[in-house]
């Protein structure tokens, strides 16, 4: 029997919605602030690994101080064409407007397409500024772009079923759209906190 070829089935754009208990919020904010200030990308990767372990029913405590999600959702979706165009504009220097905002919404039953320019049903309260201290991260690691945002317990009760990364607090260009059509993450005001983590990989195609 010859060698079995292990096909690369990794998606090139994926996202996690992770829910936490309210009492974990200080630790979450500390973690996000730490990443924000030190660019400690290892913490982001450990966080994402923890999400994967919770998803697969494994013990998420892998010896790190990272809070453990009570529930995690994951989706593999699309980078949009306008988002890729803006990335190239940044690369060649015709634009300096970088990705900074995380948008959430409830239109997850509409499938993502590469031509979309906005969330289908954006949540009230606006997008989260990932550049604000303690509110998120934006990091490049290898051929991956990591984006993350924290939703605190005071945010209005809402069921999140879609998310996207934007370059403006309103309007602007949407880099990607991730939809959770089957089961969103229900956030309850004054009870739960959440972290939204989005990953985009630019792996060359042979």
């Amino acid at each position: 029997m010859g060698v079995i070829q292990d096909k690369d089935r990794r998606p090139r754009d994926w996202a996690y919605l992770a829910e936490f208990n309210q009492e974990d919020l200080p630790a979450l904010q500390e973690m996000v602030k730490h990443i924000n200030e030190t660019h400690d990308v290892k913490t982001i990767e450990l966080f994402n690994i923890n999400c994967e372990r919770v998803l697969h029913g494994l013990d998420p405590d892998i010896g790190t101080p990272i809070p453990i999600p009570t529930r995690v959702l994951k989706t593999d979706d699309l980078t949009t064409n306008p988002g890729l165009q803006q990335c190239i504009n940044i690369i060649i220097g015709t634009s300096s407007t970088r990705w900074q905002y995380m948008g959430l919404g409830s239109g997850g039953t509409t499938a993502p397409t590469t031509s979309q320019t906005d969330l289908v049903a954006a949540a009230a309260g606006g997008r989260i500024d990932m550049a604000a201290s303690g509110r998120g991260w934006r990091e490049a690691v290898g051929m991956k772009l990591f984006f993350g945002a924290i939703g605190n317990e005071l945010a209005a009760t809402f069921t999140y079923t879609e998310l996207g990364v934007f370059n403006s607090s309103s309007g602007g260009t949407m880099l990607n759209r991730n939809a959770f059509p089957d089961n969103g993450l229900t956030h309850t005001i004054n009870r739960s906190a959440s972290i939204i983590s989005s990953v985009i990989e630019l792996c060359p195609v042979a």
Partner: protein
Amino acid sequence: MLKYGPKDTCWAANWGEKDEPLLKKYFIKSATLGRENNPMVTEFFDQLERKWNDHIGILEISSEKFEMAEIAKTDDIPTIQGLQYCCRQIIVPNLPPWRYHGAGSSTIEPRAYQQRLYGEAGTRADMTIAGQGSLTRSNQSLRGVGIFPASFPTLSVRESAIFTNSSGYTAGIMLNRQVFASNPIGHTVNGSAFTVATDINFASVTTWE
């Protein structure tokens, strides 16, 4: 699932012996039309593909026409280091941009981990100078064109790449490496100018695994 990833295509072309001034004039004019979906750059790439498909590859500037004499094409891949640098550029402001196009004669197969041309000759074309080429976006593609003058040293053009630095390999990054191993174009010093044009398509590959 959809598979993502930048895909690289490159054309090397020889032009007529007296066409170098027209070629430079074409890109000087092109520079006035912006760097996003520039119609003159689109026309240039369309003509490269026409020539590759055994038609006449011809351009016009100021009512003067000039024509490709020879063409080579290859499909290769961007380098890992090049894409890592692109990711950093997307997140971190004020990094040095992709700027230079180099050409060489090595037939060593391209690999994603390579960081140099193995038979580089002459001086790299500065794509920020209109008469030496251009660096633009066309839809989801990054397009770089390097114009190499007739005075460029004699060589068989078998490899090319885009760099952040004007020379050397110890500093700076190489974005891609293209090899025309089986169909190089020949260049003779003081003969005619040649161009190397690269299209790196960042769009999703719409095939399912």
